[in-house]
């Protein structure tokens, strides 16, 4: 199910509404240093946890961010939107953790634009 894009944070930042998007909003104006996504499939007493973790490491610009999931499409691609967050844990990295999804690929969007994507690896 497609979720509504949170407008309040964007309205607060304002810049995303600039005509022609010539200048990205502060929310989307970040530099990515690393992107990874994996599912933990290590066998053990409780079986493979199957936890999916997506981590986008970015230059810390003082803005806290998180992902808002937009679902998995028919090709097995999980789509995540970048949104504002408050806690310090959202500084310098954007993290998404869930259990149950096993997508083959993750695409990251910000302000409607695809900013990066990565294959999901399996960690056994």
């Amino acid at each position, binding site marked *: 199910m497609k979720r509504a894009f949170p407008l309040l944070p964007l309205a607060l930042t304002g810049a995303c509404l600039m005509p022609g998007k010539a200048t990205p909003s502060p929310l989307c104006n970040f530099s990515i240093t690393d992107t990874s996504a994996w599912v933990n499939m*290590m066998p*053990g007493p409780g*079986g*493979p*946890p199957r936890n999916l973790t997506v981590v986008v490491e970015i230059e810390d610009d003082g803005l806290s961010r998180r992902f808002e999931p937009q679902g998995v499409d028919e090709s097995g691609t999980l789509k995540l939107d970048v949104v504002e967050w408050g*806690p310090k844990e959202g500084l310098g990295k954007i*993290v998404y953790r869930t259990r149950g999804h096993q997508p083959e690929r993750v695409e990251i969007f910000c302000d409607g634009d695809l900013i990066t994507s990565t294959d999901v690896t399996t960690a056994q």
Partner: protein
Amino acid sequence: MISASSAYAAGATGNGILIAVIDTNTDPDHPDLTGRIVSASFDVNAATRGADDVDSEGHGTLVTGVIAANKNDIAGHGISFEADILAIRADRPGSCQETGDDGGCKFRDADLARAIDAAISNGARIINLSLGGEPDTDPSLENAIRRATAAGVLVVVSAGNEAAPAAPNEDDPSITDPATGTSPTEPANIAGAAGTLGRVVAVGSIDLNGVISDFSNRAGNGEGLNGTANTKNYYILAPGEGVLTTGPDDDVIFPDQPTCSPGQSSGCNDDDDIGDYYRVNGTSFAAPYVSGALALMLDVFPNMAPEDALAALLNSAQDYIDNNPDLIRGEAAGVGVDAVSGVGILDLAAAFAPQGATSFTIDGKVQSTALAIAPAEGAFGDWASQPGALGELVFTDKFNRAYRFDAAAILPKGEARIADFDQRADSMAGQAHAFRQGPVTFSWHQAAFRDNPAIPYDEAPPAQFTAQYLFASGGVEFGRGFGAKSLAPETSLINEAGARTGFSDGGWARYSHDVGDMSFEIFSSDDEDLAVSGIGLSRIQRDWGWRAQLSNIQDDRTALGGYVQSRFGGEDRSKLSAYALEGAWRPLNKLRLSAGMEAASVDLPGVDTSNVWTSRWSIGADTITAIGSLGLVIAQPRRAETGTLNFEGVTGLDETFNFITRTINAPLTPSGREINYEARWGFRLPGHINAGFTAALSTQPNHVEDADAASVYWFSLSKNW
């Protein structure tokens, strides 16, 4: 990445080391595992296992390949490619067939405990557990591991793939879920815990760039149920991303893919039904790197205690340093052991190198190998690095591992003994006086004092003098420095190790008594720790002369200018009984030829030597021509020609890994022969200025055959007033 080649160069293959892989099923028919899986391999749940109950992911086969895939022309090979694998299947029957969110292979603690006990009873030296989960309160698995360690078995456990940074709660983003995987999962968290005897290790993962994997559980600092801060001292990193290893046939892993048509290579399965190869990720594949490394260690060093084999890996790990806050723990991976990276990255080259203090056992006494490492100098030159000498010995490190002492590579060559130019310059700039009154001659020389403000209370060089009194049938001479004049020529720019130089400040005396044309002499000199005394017979004429001498030389500071006793913890000393003959002849008015030779029997106090003899010789020519005075000297410093040093040393291990001690008769002769050449030219310049040019070449310095020749030049201008 883990520098395994140095271990292989040492002959390590894991041969004869039994490793228990407790996992899902392992394919014994995989072409690269043929011969590696022992027949005692079994399934702890065989009685209730269905025929079609296989792990389609092939986890056991993947793990086994990292340890022991054969070394052949097919793909890569395992770390310990000749190790034996006891494959014990222990997953709960049917669990690998389960699907959905809770599907996948599961292990009951009781099954794992039974598998561990079976590994112990089958004689496994190492147990690999590439599995883990949330810590619980059931101690049965931990107790089984403790039983294994008590039986001398090493246990290697994956640290887990549960690492994830703090993140918003999936259902309520206003809640922050804390980071996970900050310390190893169970049972890896038992590493370093009480009762494990230093025989359990947790293994985290690094990527192909040597960076800790995002998913890898960190070393921790005692967090979590049953956690202990000591675990980080037993946590090591090994490759866990992009690992190439053996796996099931592609028809098993990808049952829905079609068989490849001719020319097709992707998106399809090959048409055979034998195992294939895969690149895989996870700490499941980091742990077998360490299991294999331990097998290599136990193979090459069979006398090592199991905990020492593990300690050798842990202590030699490459420190993992990242000053940026860790993604999972939020703290830096600092210098030394830390809660992020534990001891650091597995480094087999360092692990196989000697660690800590190293020592020999010589004549029943243990001594540091550092003592043996002295440069090649003096009459014995590089004897210690020659075949049959110190290279015969083995030494041990702090883990009591035995290594051959590679004397030829370790022992340094000495430097050519070039004369001290400052000393010569000071001497030339000094004052010299002499007078003669009847039968008495006295000369005195004081070298210039070069005041060095960096040295307080620096003393001026002592004055040198010579006094001579001649009477009708002989004479008396004594002095300090210089030494009595000899007929044999000497080089001036190359000093002889262990011999006095013209700048020595010791005293000397000589008494001579003429009997007909012959002259009998007795002489003595004492220069700090170098004493010479003896008798001589000479005949000196206007155009020729000769002298024969028998002398005792006692050097209390060196072994003929080099190192023998000190390499065994003693003090270098030497005593010589020298037989010398020298002579000079003027065949022409302006030409003087001279020569000298010496043979000496040598005793080295404090060590057992036999038949040590040295030689020493020099020849020279001096002439005066229209362009000035010319001189040439060719000299061989004292050199050992025969002799052996006899001692008891540990030279190897026997079949039961006990040290073998035998008598070593080490030749004391060096590899080369130092020959020094010196040419001198003296001439006058206007204004009564004396000019001198001296050039010297020393070949095979210190009697080391492959030592670089050294050359030196000296130019001087002097004017007397």
